[in-house]
């Protein structure tokens, strides 16, 4: 781990996840002081709060989740190559740097909409096809996810070449940033999908409260603590120009709310293994109590059923964990579900085994179906004046010797 990494974790990362309440508290103060708007007494205006765009890692990963997200799935136009992607990333990074700081983008036709960044983050990821384009100079070892038997994938929500994750506390900020980014991406890429998601509005709950999904469940209690980020979140040594990067798994999980309506609380809690009221395991008193999979009920069967979601998603192998940063979605047409977003340093090792277990058996499967699935390599962050992905896009072609070495390494990972 480099000095920069460590410094970042201490300065930003730790506050971002571990000390969520503290982080938000200080930002809140700052915003109140600087907010130019006339504010009713006691009403805090927080739209001026910013999350830094530049850094060792991209923002929007360990950043405490904002209330709104817009995930943009882009496909490079036919014939687009590394140079085009470079141009696009230069433009989009510039937009992101400006918008996240509360300034209109260059050529922003509505710069007034940019003045309240509301903790805006813009995070970029490259899909497998882009990575194939960059091989062999750049190869972080990302594989497409294996097929899962219960998935019912719709290409309309499928893998794209580029992902842009836009998050902010305010939906107008998100909408403006999305429009600006899509305008600047338009010469290079087409938009396959936009997946919008939301959590509780800022201030509705105490900061750091685990989100609830639209089935009413406390969702995301088990998350990756900051002390595991170096090992299980950030890539280190996997590929040149990728240290400080990570991988993103996006799963669009549709919920069968009609059938869920027919399912009462006993069945719901049994299905998940947690109480609906507070997310405590059925064997515990509070949300963060460790589930006791040995505890038995009156007849002698385990209180937390071995087929429950909690039991099936749990692994003895502590490597099979990842950072979860999900959002709810609800379409005007009635469909709703979860935008499952997970970050991991190694998708194959950390995420796939968990998903395979759930695919084999999980009581929750009766009500949830994954209809969209994609993976992305999330490059490390960039410094001021630079753009995300530059290093990997501008790598010189490897020498024959390097190529042989890279081949060995990739083989080892597969």
């Amino acid at each position, binding site marked *: 781990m480099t000095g920069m990494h460590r410094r970042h974790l201490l300065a930003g990362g730790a506050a971002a996840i571990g000390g969520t309440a503290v982080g938000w508290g200080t930002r809140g103060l700052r915003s109140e002081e600087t907010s130019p708007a006339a504010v009713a007494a006691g009403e805090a205006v927080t739209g001026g709060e910013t999350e830094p765009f530049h850094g060792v890692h991209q923002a929007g990963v360990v950043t405490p989740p904002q209330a709104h997200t817009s995930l943009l799935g882009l496909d490079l136009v036919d014939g687009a190559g590394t140079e085009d992607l470079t141009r696009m990333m230069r433009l989009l990074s510039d937009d992101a740097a400006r918008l996240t700081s509360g300034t209109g983008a260059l050529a922003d036709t509505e710069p007034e909409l940019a003045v309240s960044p509301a903790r805006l983050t813009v995070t970029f990821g490259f899909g497998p096809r882009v990575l194939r384009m960059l091989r062999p100079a750049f190869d972080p070892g990302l594989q497409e996810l294996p097929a899962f038997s219960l998935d019912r994938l719709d290409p309309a929500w499928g893998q794209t070449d580029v992902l842009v994750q836009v998050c902010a506390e305010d939906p107008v900020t998100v909408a403006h940033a999305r429009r600006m980014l899509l305008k600047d991406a338009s010469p290079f890429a087409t938009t396959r999908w936009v997946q919008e998601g939301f959590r509780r509005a800022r201030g509705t709950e105490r900061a750091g409260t685990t989100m609830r999904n639209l089935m009413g469940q406390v969702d995301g209690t088990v998350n990756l603590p900051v002390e595991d980020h170096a090992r299980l979140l950030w890539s280190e040594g996997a590929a040149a120009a990728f240290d400080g990067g990570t991988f993103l798994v996006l799963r669009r999980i549709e919920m069968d709310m009609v059938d869920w309506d027919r399912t009462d609380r006993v069945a719901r*809690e*049994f299905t998940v293994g947690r109480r609906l009221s507070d997310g405590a395991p059925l064997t515990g008193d509070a949300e963060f109590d460790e589930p006791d999979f040995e505890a*038995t*009920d009156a*007849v002698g*069967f385990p209180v937390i059923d071995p087929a429950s979601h909690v039991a099936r998603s749990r692994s003895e192998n502590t490597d099979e964990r990842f950072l979860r940063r999900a959002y709810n979605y609800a379409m005007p047409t009635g469909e709703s579900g979860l935008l499952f977003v997970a970050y991991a340093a190694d998708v194959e090792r950390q995420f796939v085994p968990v998903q395979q277990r759930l695919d084999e058996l999980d009581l929750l499967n009766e009500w949830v179906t994954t209809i969209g699935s994609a993976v992305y390599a999330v490059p490390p962050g960039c410094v001021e004046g630079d753009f995300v992905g530059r290093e990997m896009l501008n790598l010189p072609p490897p020498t024959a010797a390097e190529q042989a070495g890279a081949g060995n390494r990739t083989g080892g990972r597969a």
Partner: protein
Amino acid sequence: MTRPTTRGTARGLAALALALLPALAGVLALGGAFAPAQAHATLSSSDPAADSSVAQLPEEVSLTFNQEMRGPAYVLVTGPDGEAADGDPTIDGTTVTQAVTPGAAGTYTIAYRVVSADGHPVSGEIPFEITEGTGSAGGSEGSGAADGATDDGAGDPQVDGETIESGAADEAAGGEQGWWSRHGDHVLIFGGLFVVAGGLLYGALRRNPA
């Protein structure tokens, strides 16, 4: 004449039930999914039936519910020789079937938990007696018994205790059912308590409607 007796009996039963109430409440609290489940799917019948006496353990026990069951299902059949269930239960509509290995005479209990079509776990226990069982040594069909008692074991004692035990051990090594072997005691203690207390309370209330 019978009145004082009846009243006395009822009072005694009520007192016993009251004494057991804390235990009953504890049982209900422990098995949170337990009581409410009755409002959804319930067990309609079983073979062997609850509290029945049959000469020999059948090749399989079956549980029939009042609605379609989905699973997963867990069925334990515990007898004098320990666990008699052999392999995983199968679900067919409203019926759950569990193959068993024939065993000695004595008290048996079927403990089950099955998830119904509406997502509810339905669980309970069914005690019954085996009056004859597989008393005599027969031994030679041991492997057949372990495969799920392919021969007609009823009234034809062939499998001794040792064979049954080795069959159970195989099962445990097989994985899924191993957990249940370790927790058989709980099944008997808690389940029995529940059934006794529930039965007493029910009886008391019925005899002495306030």
